[in-house]
């Protein structure tokens, strides 16, 4: 089904949070202010790598209007944070490891005073040589950035009877290449910020966007040394995140300052600071060697991944595991040997980012597949079909997974795209521009994977106002989760949108549901509501029976209240939810906790549920400027039933253009550990003029018969396969293969020049 307004029909529903957003009435957490509020600022490092000799805050403290200046001495508890490994100092004590490292923070009456105070803090540094090349960082002679050395994590996967080198000897065709991917920036429009408001009981309320309120609560509890119950996190709505606000950012500073000054403290980072201090996508260098027999059967695949995780761990290990897992993608290869290294450097911190390591490895793998097909002399579609996974095949690291024909379904549908039909000569009448077309496919795991706690929870209640109140610990990052919950609720209970109240994003009110991450929330909402459906209906109808003396068997939940069904009589509304709620002594409420479905085999990080996607593109390469424009893009997505068509489409379209930026424009380049870009005037993300003139999204909703796992998330999949599709289309247009993203105009011009000269 081509997904658009027309095909979605009545399910094209206006977002519940839409009106407050288009009117500007919605208060984002960074829009909030409180009486007596102070403004905070953080002093970031001057150096990518240096020893701190001394920090003198005296002059800053004496500046009128300054309420508090804090350094490492003022961190009440653990001076460290990180979702898994708490190796990032809240405030550095003896060493800075990247230019975003926090050394001190200030709270003052105005932003200007806070800024002035920061400039009065004297930090004496002894600069150290920055370590900026991940491969060099692994050498014994290189200075160690952390006590255990510069290797944060390594991961490996081997498959096959023969040693990999021996299996290459059997190959008739081998392609061996090195791929490079950029340090992409999340570039959410709302930079990190929030307000911390101290309570009278020593507790604190934090209004700051984050993808996992409870994880913030736990981390702040360690840092502030107060029990988690005393910390309330209000974490939605979020002005964009894409993974970038999953880690703590300004929260430690506003909370320490607020507790010290006993006044609300707000920090809203400038874009410049956000770029310096914020997370990025892991740049990866991927060595890939792949071989086939004479007929094009994949025999050997050797991969080495070097991921630059920057100064601190954050989710570097999991991102690497994901890349290792997806190294062979949806293909069955006899012998596989993958090794991955996540390495500390003095570059900016890399962490979680939409696609989670899948984008980098898919670019390498799919380009490799195209190159091999060319070398063998068969069509890349025939080559893929020959090696594609089948419905009952195990997952990419040989783990048991839910049976899926997604790969084949996507490929079969994608090659029907009008973009790929080579009936016309694209380049007739073109002088200095060349058109080309190409495609790619991918397989992407949902949830956190084996061995990682991935629990979720949900609560469903009839509240005093007569609303069916559903509560989750998930966040509205913009993806449309509120609408998704709304639609799952109204369709499950046959009720009206007005009957549903949705509570999310507030640790004081919601159950733990885990992070809004890893394309998991839609799936977890569906599972939660389905688990609660029967017990909730039973409780509600028992109450209705008591009130009306009509057997609950004849009653059901519907619009506005409880409806009666009697044979040969029309349905009618018997009792409103409001009437029912006011008649009950105890309001019905049911809760559940459950886990994201995981593979039974103990392979760390191995996934169980996968989505599949394919992208076909048409590009136009300008031989005079070296610029590439993507003129058409078609997507085929296999993720089970579409819950929220508007949200689904938005996620794919938005993800796709983020992928386009990754391929053609975006790189937060660094030199000697310093960012070469400071703002959105030099770090360019796609504008409305850069996107394809035509984009279509085709949703495959069928799952293998008997599948009980429901709709899969689509938050990430739209970004993953875009880069190799564009690279393949550029090859179709020009004959050149590109291994380094983003694709630079001068790379194309150089290749064109060489071609002309060699004529």
């Amino acid at each position, binding site marked *: 089904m081509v997904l658009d*307004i027309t095909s979605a029909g009545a399910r*094209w529903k*206006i*977002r519940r*949070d*839409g*009106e407050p*957003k*288009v*009117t*500007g*009435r919605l208060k*984002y957490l960074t*829009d909030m*202010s409180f009486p007596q509020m102070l403004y905070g600022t953080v002093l970031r490092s001057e150096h990518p790598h240096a020893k701190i000799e001394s920090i003198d805050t005296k002059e800053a403290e004496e*500046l*009128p*209007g300054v309420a508090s200046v804090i350094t490492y001495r003022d961190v009440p508890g653990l001076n460290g944070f990180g979702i898994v490994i708490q190796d990032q100092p809240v405030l550095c004590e003896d060493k800075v490891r990247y230019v975003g490292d926090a050394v001190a923070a200030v709270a003052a009456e*105005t932003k*200007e*005073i806070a800024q*002035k*105070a920061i400039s009065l803090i004297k930090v004496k540094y002894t600069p150290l040589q920055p370590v900026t090349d991940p491969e060099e960082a692994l050498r014994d002679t290189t200075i160690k950035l952390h006590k255990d050395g510069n290797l944060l994590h390594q991961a490996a996967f081997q498959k096959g009877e023969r040693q990999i080198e021996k299996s290459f000897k059997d190959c008739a065709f081998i392609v061996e290449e090195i791929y490079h991917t950029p340090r992409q920036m*999340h*570039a*959410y*429009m*709302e*930079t990190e910020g929030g307000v911390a408001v101290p309570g009278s009981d020593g507790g604190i309320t934090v209004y700051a966007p984050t993808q996992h309120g409870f994880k913030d609560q736990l981390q702040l509890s360690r840092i502030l040394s107060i029990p988690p119950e005393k910390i309330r996190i209000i974490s939605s*709505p979020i*002005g*964009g*995140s*894409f993974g970038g606000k999953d880690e703590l950012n300004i929260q430690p500073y506003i909370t320490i300052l607020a507790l010290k000054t006993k006044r609300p403290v707000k920090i*809203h980072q*400038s*874009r410049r600071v956000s770029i310096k201090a914020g997370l990025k996508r892991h740049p990866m260098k991927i060595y890939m060697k792949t071989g086939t027999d004479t007929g094009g059967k994949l025999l050997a695949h050797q991969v080495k991944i070097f991921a630059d995780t920057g100064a601190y761990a954050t989710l570097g290990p999991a991102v690497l595991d994901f890349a290792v897992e997806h190294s062979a993608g949806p293909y069955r290869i006899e012998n596989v040997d993958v090794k991955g290294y996540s390495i500390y450097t003095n570059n900016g911190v890399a962490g979680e980012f939409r696609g989670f390591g899948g984008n980098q490895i898919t670019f390498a793998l799919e380009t490799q597949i195209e190159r091999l097909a060319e070398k063998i002399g068969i069509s890349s579609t025939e080559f893929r079909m020959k090696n594609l996974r089948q419905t009952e095949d195990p997952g990419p690291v040989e783990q048991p997974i839910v049976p899926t024909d997604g790969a084949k379904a996507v490929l079969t549908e994608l090659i029907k795209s009008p973009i790929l039909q080579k009936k016309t000569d694209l380049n007739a009448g073109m002088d200095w521009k060349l058109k080309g077309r190409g495609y790619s496919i991918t397989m992407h795991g949902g949830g956190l994977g084996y061995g990682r706690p991935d629990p979720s929870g949900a609560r469903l209640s009839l509240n005093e106002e007569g609303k069916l109140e559903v509560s989750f610990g998930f966040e509205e*990052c*913009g993806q*449309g989760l509120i609408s998704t919950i709304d639609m799952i609720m109204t369709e499950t209970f046959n009720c009206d949108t007005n009957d549903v109240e949705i509570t999310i994003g507030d640790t004081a009110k919601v159950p733990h549901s885990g992070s809004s991450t890893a394309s998991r929330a839609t799936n977890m909402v569906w599972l939660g509501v389905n688990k609660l459906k029967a017990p909730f209906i039973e409780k509600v109808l028992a109450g209705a029976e008591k009130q009306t003396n009509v057997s609950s068997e004849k009653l059901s939940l519907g619009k506005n209240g409880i409806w009666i069904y009697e044979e040969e009589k029309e349905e009618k509304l018997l009792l409103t939810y409001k009437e029912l709620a006011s008649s009950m002594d105890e309001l019905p409420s049911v809760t559940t906790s459950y886990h994201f479905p995981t593979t039974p085999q103990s392979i760390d990080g191995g996934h169980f549920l996968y989505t599949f996607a394919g992208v076909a593109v048409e590009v136009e390469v300008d031989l005079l400027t070296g610029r590439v424009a993507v003129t058409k893009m078609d997507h085929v997505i296999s993720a089970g039933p579409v819950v929220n068509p*508007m*949200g689904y*489409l*938005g996620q794919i*379209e*938005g*993800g*796709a*253009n*983020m992928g386009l930026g990754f391929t053609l424009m975006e790189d937060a380049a660094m030199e000697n550990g310093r960012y070469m870009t400071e*703002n*959105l*005037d030099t770090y360019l*993300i*796609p*504008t*409305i*003029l850069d*996107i394809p003139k035509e*984009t279509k999204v085709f949703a495959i909703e069928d799952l293998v018969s008997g599948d009980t796992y429901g709709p899969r998330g689509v938050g990430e999949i739209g970004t993953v396969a875009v880069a190799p599709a564009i690279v393949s289309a550029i090859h179709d247009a020009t004959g050149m293969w590109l291994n380094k993203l983003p694709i630079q105009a001068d790379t194309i011009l150089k290749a064109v020049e060489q071609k002309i000269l060699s004529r």
Partner: protein
Amino acid sequence: MDANKLIEKTTSFKVNGKQIELTLPPTYRLVDILRDSLSLTGTKVACEVGRCGACSVIMNGKLVNSCLIMAYQMEDAEIFTIESLSEERLHPIQEAFLQAGALQCGYCTPGMIIALKSLLDEEEQPSKEDVLTALSGNLCRCTGYEGILRAVDLLTKKRHETIGEGKE
């Protein structure tokens, strides 16, 4: 310099039809005046260098980035922010954004709507080229812009119908 003793000056201007008088440093930015001094937080702040358009407002009939306007430039100015569009009911642009799914996180949305309003105020039937050019100063990281283009389509279709009806 003592940060407490910044030179301040009284500036009067109109925001959404309301006369305002504020005593502020002349270099205080319009975006901060709107958000911090007047609590009009519908105008967003995102890049502060005039690149992203999140802080777009209409000043003296022209589209401006409010991060680039300082208090000393605002004497007697007339400013309209996103809040002015829906004082009674939703503006047709806002309706179209809702219908088309032209927003996700929504942080760029007010600026995007203001930029579109500024274009439509000047040109009733803009070409596709005009629309693309007019919105190219507004960055959106969520929608991929397709939703926004759907909203423009809905809107121009509607305006076309209305104008057609008016002629009959």
